[in-house]
């Protein structure tokens, strides 16, 4: 594609009217003055206040900005320990001892943007550019299916070669690919912001969650770090998920890239994003929140020298505050983090992880790490089987459940169930069923030995005897060869 054609495409992407409709008196929802005031007012919060806020979180109520600010400003390590425990209790209450697991699949790294922290930026000449053909994509998916994956997040750079029609074709291909018993049952998408009309195309294909991270909510920092390209438009990105909701894609994922600006500010930004979505869409906020930390990337010195890099201890704190602030929302802890960090932080209330990840475009089938095709460098290179085994040793059952979005439990319905703390009544049975499939079809002997106990343990813990009996019957059917059974 010629440079002129790319430029013409870029001019057509942003639809100003699909930004303006969401502004209030010309302003977006990231009220920096409110954030500053909240953080400055809640300095040295009393223990009693912090404990009251924790009680509110345990009641599964979303926190207000001043409450989140108070948690962020806590300086008492004893109280932080209580917060970590509260995060874990919330996770148990809402989601149970299950961890939903997925794989990232990088489909294209062509990009028109110039984000200074990203290995895929247009002017990074050391990155090898690659976009998968449908045939290559099929092989990547086959490779993932053969390892036992059922859920993907497919990731695309922003470029006319990977526009909505390409994304739609690749989604269709992923859903069509089957290997024996195995198939991908839910494909989430991480791609550039789109118009409502384009999002309707992905909706019709059967997209899972649509994920767009704001990276930083701080306006000036955003401007500096995104100097050129479509991504330079802060508001087009900020309202990407509002447009998705308006298009009928009612599971959306927000996120911030920690290390670009002050971590407390970004947590407040995520909270304000949640509040605005809930306000406009009948109580439906984000389906998931992600909190990646900036990682080293090829020929990208900013990633090592940002003044806002977040250390491991602070990372645990910010994840905990997000858990407490939005107690009913899924939280994704990615393989950017080292195994020891993940094993520690997951206990504060994370619900989803990726495992067996390879983020080089086209690298799954080659089973190699190609740093020159990666956006950044992963911290956790455990295989899916190893990660499942480690989770089992910590008492977590891995779930490949995809039932919700195939049973109408999306958007308002899902959020209603999650907020009432009842989601695990269905999700735990589905975790047991999908975990049984994994153990039968893909697990190593070591993992079977280490993890099989979870089936009986979690089955016995199901509170409803009728559901327990139903699941027992389904487990027998799975042992007999049936697959994809769910409640």
């Amino acid at each position, binding site marked *: 594609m010629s440079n002129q054609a790319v430029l013409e495409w870029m001019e057509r992407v942003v639809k100003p009217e699909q930004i303006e409709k969401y502004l209030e008196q010309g302003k977006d929802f990231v009220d920096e003055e409110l954030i500053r005031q909240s953080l400055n007012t809640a300095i040295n919060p009393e223990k009693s206040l912090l404990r009251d806020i924790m009680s509110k979180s345990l009641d599964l109520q979303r926190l207000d900005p001043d409450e989140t600010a108070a948690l962020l400003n806590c300086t008492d390590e004893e109280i932080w320990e209580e917060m970590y425990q509260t995060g874990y209790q919330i996770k148990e209450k809402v989601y149970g001892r299950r961890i939903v697991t997925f794989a990232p699949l990088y489909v294209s790294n062509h990009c028109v943007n110039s984000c200074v922290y990203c290995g895929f930026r247009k002017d990074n000449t050391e990155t090898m550019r690659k976009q998968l053909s449908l045939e290559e994509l099929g092989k990547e998916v086959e490779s993932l299916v053969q390892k036992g994956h059922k859920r993907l997040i497919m990731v695309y750079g922003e470029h006319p070669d990977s526009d909505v029609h390409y994304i739609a074709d690749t989604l269709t291909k992923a859903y069509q690919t089957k290997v024996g018993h195995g198939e991908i049952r839910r494909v989430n998408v991480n791609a550039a912001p789109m118009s409502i009309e384009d999002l309707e195309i992905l909706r019709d294909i059967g997209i899972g969650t649509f994920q767009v991270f704001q990276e930083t909510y701080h306006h000036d920092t955003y401007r500096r770090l995104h100097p050129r390209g479509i991504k330079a438009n802060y508001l087009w990105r900020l309202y990407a998920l509002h447009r998705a909701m308006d298009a009928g894609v009612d599971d959306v994922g927000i996120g911030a890239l920690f290390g670009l600006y002050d971590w407390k500010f970004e947590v407040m930004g995520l909270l304000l994003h949640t509040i605005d979505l809930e306000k406009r869409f009948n109580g439906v906020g984000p389906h998931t929140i992600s909190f990646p930390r900036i990682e080293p990337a090829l020929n990208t010195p900013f990633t090592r020298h940002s003044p806002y890099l977040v250390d491991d201890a602070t990372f645990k704190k910010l994840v905990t505050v997000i858990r407490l602030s939005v107690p009913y929302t899924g939280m994704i802890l990615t393989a950017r983090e080292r195994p020891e960090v993940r094993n520690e932080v997951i206990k504060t209330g994370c619900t989803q992880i990726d495992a067996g990840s390879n983020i080089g475009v086209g690298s799954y089938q080659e089973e190699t790490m190609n740093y020159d095709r990666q956006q950044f460098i992963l911290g956790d290179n455990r295989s899916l089987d190893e990660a499942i085994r480690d989770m089992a040793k910590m008492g977590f059952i891995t779930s490949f459940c995809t039932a919700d979005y195939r049973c109408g439990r*999306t958007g308002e319905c899902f959020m209603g169930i999650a907020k009432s703390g009842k989601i695990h009544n269905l999700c735990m049975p589905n975790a047991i069923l999908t975990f049984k499939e994994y153990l039968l079809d893909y697990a190593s002997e070591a993992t079977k030995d280490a993890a099989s106990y979870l089936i009986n343990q979690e089955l016995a813990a199901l509170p409803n005897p009728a559901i327990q009996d139903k699941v027992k019957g389904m487990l027998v059917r799975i042992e007999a060869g049936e697959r994809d059974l769910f409640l």
Partner: protein
Amino acid sequence: MHQPLFKKVSLYQEHNEILPACHQALQDIYPGIKVRWARIYGRRWAFQYGDSFGDLPAVKYKINEQMGLIISNQELIPDQELPLVLDTLRKCLL
């Protein structure tokens, strides 16, 4: 055709959209069932209307290419009536 259901839907439809009308009619005729309606987009069954029943297992039925019905306590609908119910809903939702 399930005539009582069809009549009820027609009655409710005078003052309601078609989904709430079907929803209310089903619950009148089969008290105790819980129902939710979904728009089908490929594999995604997107919630449109009805009950959450988050702690109850349910059975899903495809009414047509666009609409799906998810029922909990479906045993409250006699087996021989279920095909008629689905057929009637199919006609109502044309």
